[in-house]
């Protein structure tokens, strides 16, 4: 197996992992701080992609579209928090699951109403087009490298935010003991809205960046949502570090699995059969890994301090 191919696949795994991290970080923050399971996170991802596509088409600039996606997702997140999520804090997980499931329906159908049923067109900006040569003989798409860089930047930014700012301090306190910080006079309501909007913005960013790479259509968020949940469950809910490790793990396992499993099975079963069996196993692989991890560590790898 050539080194170039392996390097390219590892980078692919990292890029996929970064995208999952953006989703998972928001989810884990929202759950850790507010105790809310947000199934509508995939819809926020979709919203970011649509906002970016719409603005980019109207203005001709991807960068403006990116800003729009952050703004739109954050705004949508804030509105959803104020109108819906606020009423769910005291409820059990079941109610939260159902309410946010209902939100998925509303967002999906609403988006289809506004934008129609055909996929939307979003292009990579010329600045980030094309491929670059890497050591080892590999060639890699520049835009994907940019995504990896953005993801690392966001991870560092989140770390600084949480560890070094007052807002971060409040977030950490909120994760530890919700009632106490309310008793200490911190305005919980605003804190929650900010956290939710932050998580939403991250999801919107992921949606916009990936939308340029893939396609922008209704329902694009749900598959990612499920994987993001797998990530935070593996990593440990409430832990950003867990989200990072979990995302890298899931990204690498999935990408390398999709590449190596059909290859290995082809040795035993021949190309066509091996490809089908390998592909089938590869699609199940992440869930198998998650089940194994949960069997030994029922609360994920980095259990949050609660």
């Amino acid at each position, binding site marked *: 197996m050539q080194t170039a191919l392996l390097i390219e696949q590892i980078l692919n795994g990292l890029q996929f992992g970064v995208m999952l991290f953006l989703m998972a970080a928001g989810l884990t923050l929202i759950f850790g701080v507010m105790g809310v399971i947000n199934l509508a996170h995939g819809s926020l991802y979709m919203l970011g992609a649509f906002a970016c596509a719409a603005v980019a088409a109207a203005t001709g600039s991807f960068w403006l579209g990116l800003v729009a996606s952050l703004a739109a997702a954050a705004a949508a997140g804030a509105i959803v928090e104020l109108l819906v999520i606020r009423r769910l804090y005291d409820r059990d997980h079941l109610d939260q699951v159902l309410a946010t499931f209902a939100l998925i329906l509303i967002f999906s159908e609403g988006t289809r109403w506004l934008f129609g049923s055909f996929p939307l067109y979003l292009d990579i900006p010329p600045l980030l087009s094309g491929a670059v040569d890497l050591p080892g003989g590999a060639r890699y798409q520049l835009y994907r490298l940019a995504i990896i860089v953005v993801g690392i930047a966001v991870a560092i930014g989140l770390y600084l935010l949480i560890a070094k700012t007052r807002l971060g301090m409040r977030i950490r306190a909120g994760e530890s003991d919700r009632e106490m910080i309310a008793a200490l006079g911190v305005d919980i309501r605003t804190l929650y809205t900010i956290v939710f909007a932050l998580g939403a913005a991250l999801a919107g960013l992921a949606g916009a960046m*990936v939308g340029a*790479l893939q396609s922008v259509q209704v329902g694009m968020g749900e*598959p990612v949502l499920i994987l993001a949940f797998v990530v935070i469950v593996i990593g440990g809910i409430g832990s950003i570090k867990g989200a990072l490790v979990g995302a890298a793990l899931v990204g690498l396992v999935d990408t390398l699995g999709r590449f190596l499993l059909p290859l290995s099975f082809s040795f035993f079963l021949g190309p066509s059969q091996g490809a089908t069996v390998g*592909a089938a196993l590869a699609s199940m692989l992440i869930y198998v890994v998650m089940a194994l991890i949960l069997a030994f560590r029922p609360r994920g790898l980095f259990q949050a301090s609660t």
Partner: protein
Amino acid sequence: MKKAMVAGLFGLAVSAPGVALAEPIKVGMITTLSGGGAGLGLDVRDGFLLAIKQSVNKDIEVIVEDDTMKPELAVQIADKMIQSEKVDILTGIIWSNLAMAVVPNAVAQGKFYLSPNAGPSALAGAKCNENYFNVAWQNDNLHEAMGNYANTAGYKKSFILAPNYPAGTDALTGYKRFYKGELAGELYTKLGQTDYAAEIAQVRASGADSVYIFLPGGMGIAFMKQYAQSGVGIPVLGPGFSFDQDVLGAIGDAAIGVKNTSQWSKDLDNPANKTFVETFQAEYGRLPSLYASQGYDTANLILSAAAKASVQDADAFRAALKAADFKSVRGDFKFGNNNHPIQDIYVREVVKEGDVLTNKIIGVSLEDHQDAYAKECKM
């Protein structure tokens, strides 16, 4: 479930030429109007309704319902249409899995089913039925044509790729049936997968001279965009499903130059097609896709049969359908023994005309091509 009733005027015997009997025909159209795959259903519906609108026969009533791509819903709608609405003809299904759920039961109850899209091999072979007509193609056809074209174009080392589900494995089987070269790789991706980085890396490393993909809808858009950016550069081949009007806009310039096969193209030179393309664009403000052409032809087939026989006389109507005496946008049209079309499959290239991406015919791959399953059909 949406009910969009295009009402026919009943009763008044219209003495316009070409309309033999004023017997009303009720058509039930079950198609996908929502969700990621809605573009195909909307096109089929629009093409179908356009033909109905243009016809002098005003006794056709069309009921359209959305199956949202769910087989159980399609079955339920079909039951309702047969039992409650008492339709004479069913049509509209886009996806092969929904077709397999609905068609056998419908035709067993004596209703006609005309497929404007899905062409599963089971229904072309062992499970063929005298009441089932496929107006589009058998699923393998477009892939077979591309396999054939790959030979004539001199491609000797193809890398082939499709999603891991029956239509996907059928597609690659169809390609391999005609393609005589060597395979640089054969990959099955996950259905609904949107990131093809891993697969593209393998294509790059394989030394192939051509890449054949079957990736309908959003999957194809994602692949093409990523492929163009990856710098791999090996020519891409595919069936018309992945490169027609409904998705070209979203793929963008990355699609230019791709060769694809189809039984129809907007530049086919016959009067019926010219009228179709012009009136479709005038009516709906967009260029038609091959799906729209299939819907249009299906409606015209029904109209041609209605002009010859009453739908109440099943045998006569069936014979009239089989005769296929209508002006198809594909030119001449005829059915084989298994009620699937015997037709030419063209090779097209994606080009840009002004601001719009569309297809242009560059040759014929298979002439008077019949599907591979006709022999298994006992009709």
